[in-house]
């Protein structure tokens, strides 16, 4: 800096003024900022001012005035008096500015109106302030859990509304539905009598509530209640498809917006620390609470950025030997994970088989309490596995050396298969019970297509299983919070030493909680065909869950020491939710197309398959509508549709590839631009010093 420039500030002719303006632009030049006529230049010291103050002010006055003649007065960074003088000197040019400002004025009003509307819509979301406060106090990761919970609540509310309009309303519009078939009614497919005969004790009423049997079995809660009349069959099917499609669209929309944020945030070349430092503070913030929240947010974001930069730097600095070692460790850990998962799946299957055998023993049949406990054993085993394995995966994740955001995603992917596949194993065992292991010629299934002796109304039975899973999940969450988390915090907090300190640093385990949400929602998606009121129950459950988790969070957890990037969370969580949706579609579609509906209950009794309702209803429509719908279902429509979709997809992939290449090219250009600028400045200085002796 000192080896720099002592230029003669006399105003030169045209070459001199261009050199002065270049020098003014040089990064290395001592940029003394001109504050206007009669005011001390910004950044100049007192002694300098006395020595050559007049000259330096003159030089900059010369250079600046040539630039600023073209600027309107209000754009000049000068005091008001100086601007007044400048405006008087510029008297002729005002007309143009006022007309420009009118158009600009309307444009600004429009953007401000749009911003206000967006802010208003965001404020309409329930618990907006709570979620914001959680984000500020506990970090972006915890906030993403609560916003996912709010999103699932929206999905369930919409599904309940659809069910109410398309299932409940048509049922009651055509008169009260008939009661359950008595024990005397029988047909070729056995008899079905859902109500227990005689008086029921209070204890057994309670068990009925928890397991969906007894008086609940023939109620709007389950499939079996709905009569086979009118258009109920069609609307029942359509409500399931409509709610599935709606959920798919909303999840995709949420995931795509998260993807956009992730791409921006993840790319190393575009993140800018100078932006984070200089434009992080919103000068319009008022209110001490908002200020505190904003400061915490900035701190969390900076921590995430710096941590990821550190991991990237360390990854680049590894030698070949270290790289190989890291990959070997990762491979071994993945094998370990797969072994654990395989053992868990087999364990679940074995327990379900054993339970089926146990339920047939006469000792169990006689005591309702024992019956209830035995029927819950598969659920208990599933929950135990889900409690034991995720901490193990957490530990494994920490050994792999990824950034925290990637760790969270890997833990999620591993544990989701555990949670969802356990559910699928349960469904598989149910299926083998209903369809006699897939053997249509087995003696129990030959007559009616399903095992009518054990399961006279198999859809209601599946609905009951899902209902039990939902209730059990809620009870487990309540019990875990009340009997484990609160006492742990209270008692360990009273203990001195390391135990007390450990209790003070308990954190909110985001991956586990998110998986709990995804599992609960998948259960509801599977069960909503067999138990139409399940989304409504789930809405109530999620509202309860929100307040429970919020209470637990604020009372027992401390802010996360290391948080992860919220944008990655908002991209991956909906994707895993989508996985749950797809997996839940499998049993539902299988039941609709391939299993014979029960002959004694439900709106599809007596039909070949549940789907058969649709062609039958289409045949009652006028001729042209019939032809149209049958055309839609034929191969002549499906094959061209598939071809066109494939072509569009290939085109989109090619387009995305070329954009990707363009982006890397531009990134490389940005990096060389900075070097160009420095090079040019150095050349300019060299040229300037060569000219001086002349």
């Amino acid at each position, binding site marked *: 800096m000192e080896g720099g420039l002592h230029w003669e500030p006399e105003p030169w002719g045209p070459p001199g003024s261009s050199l002065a303006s270049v020098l003014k632009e040089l990064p*290395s030049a001592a940029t003394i900022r001109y504050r206007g006529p009669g005011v001390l230049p910004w950044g100049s010291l007192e002694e300098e001012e006395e020595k050559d103050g007049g000259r330096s002010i003159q030089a900059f006055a010369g250079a600046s005035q040539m630039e600023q003649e073209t600027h309107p007065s209000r*754009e000049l960074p000068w005091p*008001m008096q100086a601007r007044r003088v400048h405006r008087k000197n510029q008297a002729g040019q005002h007309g143009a500015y006022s007309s420009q400002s009118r158009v600009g004025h309307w444009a600004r009003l429009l953007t401000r109106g749009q911003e206000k509307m967006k802010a208003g819509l965001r404020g309409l979301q329930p618990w907006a302030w709570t979620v914001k406060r959680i984000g500020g106090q506990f970090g972006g990761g915890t906030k993403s859990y609560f916003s996912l919970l709010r999103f699932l609540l929206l999905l369930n509310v919409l599904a309940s509304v659809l069910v109410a309009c398309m299932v409940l309303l048509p049922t009651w519009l055509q008169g009260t539905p008939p009661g359950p078939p008595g024990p005397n009614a029988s047909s070729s497919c056995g008899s079905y009598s859902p109500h227990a005969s005689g008086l029921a004790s209070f204890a057994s009423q309670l068990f009925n509530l928890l397991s969906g049997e007894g008086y609940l079995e023939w109620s709007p809660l389950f499939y079996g209640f709905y009569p086979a009349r009118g258009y109920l069959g069609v609307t029942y099917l359509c409500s399931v498809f409509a709610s599935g499609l709606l959920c798919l669209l909303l999840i995709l929309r949420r995931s795509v917006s998260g993807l956009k944020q992730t791409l921006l945030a993840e790319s190393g070349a575009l993140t800018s620390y100078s932006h984070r430092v200089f434009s992080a503070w919103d000068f319009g913030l008022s209110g001490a609470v908002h200020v505190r929240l904003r400061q915490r947010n900035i701190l969390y974001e900076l921590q995430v950025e710096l941590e990821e930069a550190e991991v990237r730097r360390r990854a680049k600095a590894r030698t070949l030997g270290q790289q190989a070692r890291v990959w070997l460790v990762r491979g071994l850990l993945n094998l370990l994970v797969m072994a654990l998962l395989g053992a868990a799946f087999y364990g679940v299957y074995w327990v379900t088989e054993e339970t089926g055998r146990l339920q047939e023993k006469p000792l169990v049949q006689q005591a309702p309490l024992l019956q209830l406990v035995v029927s819950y054993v598969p659920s208990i085993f599933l929950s135990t596995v889900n409690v034991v394995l995720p901490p193990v995966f957490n530990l494994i994740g920490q050994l792999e050396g990824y950034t925290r955001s990637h760790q969270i995603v890997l833990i999620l992917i591993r544990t989701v298969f555990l949670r969802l596949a356990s559910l699928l194993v349960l469904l598989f065992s149910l299926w083998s019970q209903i369809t006699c292991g897939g053997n249509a010629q087995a003696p129990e299934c030959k007559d009616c297509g399903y095992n009518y002796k054990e399961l006279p109304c198999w859809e209601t039975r599946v609905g009951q299983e899902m209902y039990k899973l939902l209730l059990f999940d809620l009870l487990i969450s309540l019990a875990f919070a009340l009997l484990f988390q609160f006492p742990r915090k209270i008692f360990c907090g009273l203990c001195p030493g390391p135990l007390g300190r450990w209790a003070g640093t308990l954190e909110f385990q985001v991956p586990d909680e998110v998986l709990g949400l995804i599992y609960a929602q998948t259960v509801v998606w599977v069960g909503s065909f067999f138990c139409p009121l399940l989304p409504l129950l789930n809405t109530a459950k999620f509202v309860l869950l929100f307040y429970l988790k919020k209470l637990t969070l604020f009372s027992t957890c401390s802010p996360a020491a290391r948080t992860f990037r919220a944008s990655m969370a908002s991209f991956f969580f909906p994707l895993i939710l989508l996985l749950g949706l797809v997996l839940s579609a499998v049993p539902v579609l299988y039941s609709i197309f391939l299993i014979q509906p029960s002959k004694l209950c439900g709106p599809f009794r007596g039909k070949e398959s549940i789907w058969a309702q649709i062609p039958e209803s289409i045949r009652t429509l006028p001729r042209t509508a019939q032809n149209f719908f049958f055309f839609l279902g034929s191969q002549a429509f499906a094959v061209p549709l598939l071809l066109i979709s494939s072509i569009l997809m290939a085109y989109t992939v090619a387009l995305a590839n070329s954009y990707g290449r363009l982006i890397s090219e531009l990134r490389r250009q940005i990096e060389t631009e900075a070097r160009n600028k420095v090079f040019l400045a150095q050349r300019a200085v060299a040229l300037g010093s060569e000219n001086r002796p002349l």
Partner: protein
Amino acid sequence: MGQCLRYQMHWEDLEEYQALTFLTRNEILCIHDTFLKLCPAGKYYKEATLTMDQVSSLPALRVNPFRDRICRVFSHNNVFSFEDVLGMASVFSEQACPSLKIEYAFRIYDFNENGFIDEEDLQRIVLRLLNSDDVSEDLLMDLIQHVLSESDLDNDNMLSFSEFEHAMAKSPDFMNSFRIHFWGC
């Protein structure tokens, strides 16, 4: 605290202020009202001055971590005249042009007023942003190193105005965050 003499602003003065600042008519009148409420009794508003403490305690600036720097940059001789307050509101208004905002942002962030944002300034900015008790030394040093390696093009460990301008011109959020709407009316 009494009020200034309640003179209506002359129409010509209003027009002139509209031409010389980026404020709309309503905003200027609003600031005029606020100024009248705060200034000492019995003086004409064009001659009255406010102390830096009075301006710092305006609701818009009360909780701002940079309020002392804002007051120092926009005041003349440690007091605020009405025109100084208008000038400050103009720079922070929505309609102000980017070059003006960047210029004043640079002055605000230059804590030691040597014409550059050096490491000491950056340290003070980050501590003000985050609230000193939460920040570890490592994070601070790391962050300052990153900022300098990104924006300091001539490797002198300081940001000159052109480097700062270059960095801020690329920032999408700068215009939105360097804004104050509401001046207390």
